[in-house]
């Protein structure tokens, strides 16, 4: 059926609603064999619903999902395969490790259900446990494990029988910060090692950017952008994506005109005040007079305590310090510019006081003008 032999999961025009409310609207994607794709978006945007449609835990209203060569759901053709017939693995947010079984029994469950021989069950389960570093805890009951260990059991349980696709629904969000990073790297390592196609749901953009081959950004049941992490980070398709990926300041203004790649924007400085003229790239599709947002990342903004001399600073803005937060290796600060707030990063220690006048500069190439 599929034109591309490498496509492992394809989702076509998927729709799912709960009552009148759309949870997923016109979702399309093709995921290649071995690819790691992340669904990223704020809570309630429909990521879990999409994933559960793939798993067979929800029934979509319309669309078609194929896993490998098999159509697993297509309401229009009255096709629906139950989860147990889809050859998938899934890891849940709450771990869902069965407390009445040992670690071994948890992990071996999939093989037992598939009527593997007892020899195979034993070797494969122990192999998988080794892979996640839990072989020494095989006989322990799941209730006697830490959160990180439980999540490893859940992971091992989902990959032990070598499914075609593995689905992750925010598996790291119940772990504490340190463990989360560790598990994150481990999942990536395992995924590459096993080469299994993965769909990973998260609301944490850094997780998505670090782990994925491709990121699908969703908002309000709709895909906003699909791309590899660099692309998403450097070239957000719209204000929502820019805002959601990393800390971004957005300055609203009117598009004035454009000169090649560079456009100029009049950022409003509040009623009666002279608008601030900024230059940025982008704004494809917008025409002069349209409302646009100039997006700025903290790391692209340079801080000056005195008004800098010369003209090679690109855009220059005057503002007042709101506050600073100490974040270990660097300081994060906020500066008020008219009605706007701009986040900045300060690498070396500066003694900034509240309301102190500072100057911010950034190159037009580093700021993106986004249509709304």
């Amino acid at each position, binding site marked *: 059926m599929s034109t591309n032999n490498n496509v492992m999961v394809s989702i076509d025009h998927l729709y799912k609603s709960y009552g009148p409310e759309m949870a997923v609207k016109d979702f399309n994607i093709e995921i290649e064999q071995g690819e790691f794709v992340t669904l990223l978006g704020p809570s309630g945007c429909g990521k*879990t619903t999409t994933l559960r449609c793939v*798993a*067979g*835990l929800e029934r979509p209203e319309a669309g078609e999902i194929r896993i490998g060569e098999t159509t697993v759901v297509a309401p229009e053709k009255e096709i629906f395969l*139950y*989860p*147990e017939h*889809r*050859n*998938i*693995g*899934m890891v*849940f*947010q*709450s771990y*869902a490790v*069965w*407390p*009445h079984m040992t670690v071994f029994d948890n992990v071996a*469950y*999939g093989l037992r*259900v*598939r009527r593997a021989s007892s020899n195979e069950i034993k070797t494969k389960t122990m192999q998988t446990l080794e892979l996640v570093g839990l072989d020494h805890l095989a006989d322990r009951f799941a*209730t006697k494990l830490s959160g990180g260990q439980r999540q490893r059991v*859940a992971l091992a*349980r*989902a990959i032990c*029988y070598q499914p075609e696709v593995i*689905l992750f*629904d*925010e598996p790291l*969000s*119940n772990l504490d910060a340190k463990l989360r990073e560790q598990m994150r790297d481990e999942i990536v390592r395992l995924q590459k090692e096993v080469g299994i196609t993965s769909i990973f749901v998260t609301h944490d953009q850094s997780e998505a950017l670090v782990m994925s081959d491709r990121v699908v950004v969703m908002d309000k049941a709709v895909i906003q952008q699909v791309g590899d992490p660099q692309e998403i980070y450097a070239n957000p398709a719209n204000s929502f994506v820019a805002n959601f990926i990393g800390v971004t300041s957005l300055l609203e203004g009117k598009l004035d005109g454009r000169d090649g790649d560079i456009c100029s924007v009049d950022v409003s400085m509040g009623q009666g005040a002279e608008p601030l003229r900024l230059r940025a790239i982008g704004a494809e599709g917008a025409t002069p007079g349209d409302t646009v947002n100039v997006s700025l990342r903290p790391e692209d903004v340079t801080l000056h305590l005195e008004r800098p001399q010369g003209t090679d600073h690109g855009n220059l803005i005057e503002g007042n310090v709101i506050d600073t937060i100490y974040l270990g290796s660097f300081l994060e600060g906020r500066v008020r510019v008219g009605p706007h707030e701009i986040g900045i990063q300060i690498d070396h220690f500066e003694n900034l006081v509240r309301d102190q006048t500072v100057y911010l500069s950034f190159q037009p190439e580093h700021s993106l003008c986004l249509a709304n």
Partner: protein
Amino acid sequence: MTTETYSSNAVERSRLNNRLRAMVTQENLITLVVALIVAGAVIVPLVVLFVSSFKVLDPAGWDTTWGFGNYVTMFTDRIIPKAFVNTLIISSGSTILATFLGVSLAWINARTNCPGRSYLEPYNLIPFFLSPFVGAIAWHNLGEPQTGLLNNLAREVFGIEGAIINVDNIWGVIWVTGIFFAPLVYLFVVGSLRRMDPSLEDSARTTGAGLFRTTMTVTLPLVMPGILSGAIIVFVTSAGEFGVPFKLSAPYGWETLTTQIFSKAVGDDANHHMGAAMSMALGIITVFLIWVQQRYIAPRSFTTVTGKGFRPNVLDLGPWRWVAFGYNIFFIMVAVVLPIVCLIIVSLHPVWTGKIVLADITTINYVKTLMWWHPEAISAATNGIGNSLILAFGGASISMVLALVISYMIHRTKGFGVRMLDFLSMVPIGFPGIVLAMGVLVTYIQTPIYATLWILMLAYITRFFPYGQRNISSIMLAISEELDQSSRMAGASWFTTLRRITIPLLKPGLFAGWILLFIIFLRELSISIILFTTGTETLSVGVYYLTNFENEPLTSALSMAQTVMLLIAIYAFRRLAGREALTA
């Protein structure tokens, strides 16, 4: 040097004094007094029962000697060993039936898309509140081979010879006990089924297990501690159940321990010491089982609830949902609708022959059993309503006050005797009512409260206040102590705090507990049957009297009156306590 020693001695002494004085606080004194009163009520009858069981009545029935004779008799008697075996068979059978019904209904209502499940649930629970004794009476009228309504219908409608069912045997007892105690198991498992993290089952499905396998290997094992707890409670309650075997099996040759205890407590060949020994035997079994449940099974329940990522997980049964619906309706029919309809029909006939005779319909049975001013009134029946209402109102009120005081002491004070109170409010749960009643009987038979309503009240409260206490305790555990403390810090006195903060927060629980006890007392049989005398009959004793000495229509009329009162109380319970009161 000497002065130093002296002064350090003095410091020591005054420290000791202070500690002693600190111990004799109001709090400690009150807790101790309450603990001693409760201990008196709970422990004394059990000790007297124990002692009494070693007194052997001589054949003439005049004198007693000390010895193990009663216990020997239990093995050598013609009837008792069989009664013992029958009790075990009945308890095992009804436990299996009740567990199957309770778990399957809870699963259907909590986890599937069975049509109308939230409307059906209250009706599934109704048998929990009704009297199993009355259930036995109703089923006798439905399933007696000659006069049973169902058998007559089968003969008339389908032209069947003989009888399709016969409930007047040990199977009938299992049947009625099983359907009436199914809600007990239901209540033990429905909460954890409803709140179980759905991803536990989802992950079994995505791992490759089908619906059936998931249910068998994940869902049921996870609620197994609840199932076992419920099963043990049903076993113990069935073993202590008097009314059902008394009505359905004892007259036909299947005695049980409870019917034997009863025959030794009252009647011509009464032998309280023999009854005490049998009560000890029954009590030891039930206490042991309850201990196992409390000590080993209840603490093992799995925490399967997670706050995050929760989705209500309802299984789509497809066309099978109508099978589930039919099954549910079938249960409500046999446990609630058929018995009540049958009682109404029988109670409207002057005599019951098994056939509905419209021309004969009469209300005379209600006149005779309810209208105490009527010349034909049967006083054993009419006394019952008044006495039961007094006992239910008074008993529920006193029990709840006692429960409130005890819970408050256990959870909010650190006085002496708190641990003892905690233990004491567990003990009565281990003993069937009939056993505790035997204890109360042998303890107080020589005192003036014997043959008054007070002895019934005392036994009711002693046996059942733990239910109210647990009700309040669970809420007290849930409402933070800091609410109390912040009121005290805001300057309110202890009493103001109790009145303005604690009691209002507990109010729903107090109401729910009160009505629950009211219902229990209104239908109470196995304590009353041991302790009543002429004039202190209760409702259920009235029913017993009518079924024993009068006819089925009169029995059905009073049974119906009791059932109506219980149904009103159930309605009030649901209105006041809310939907979640029982099943949460």
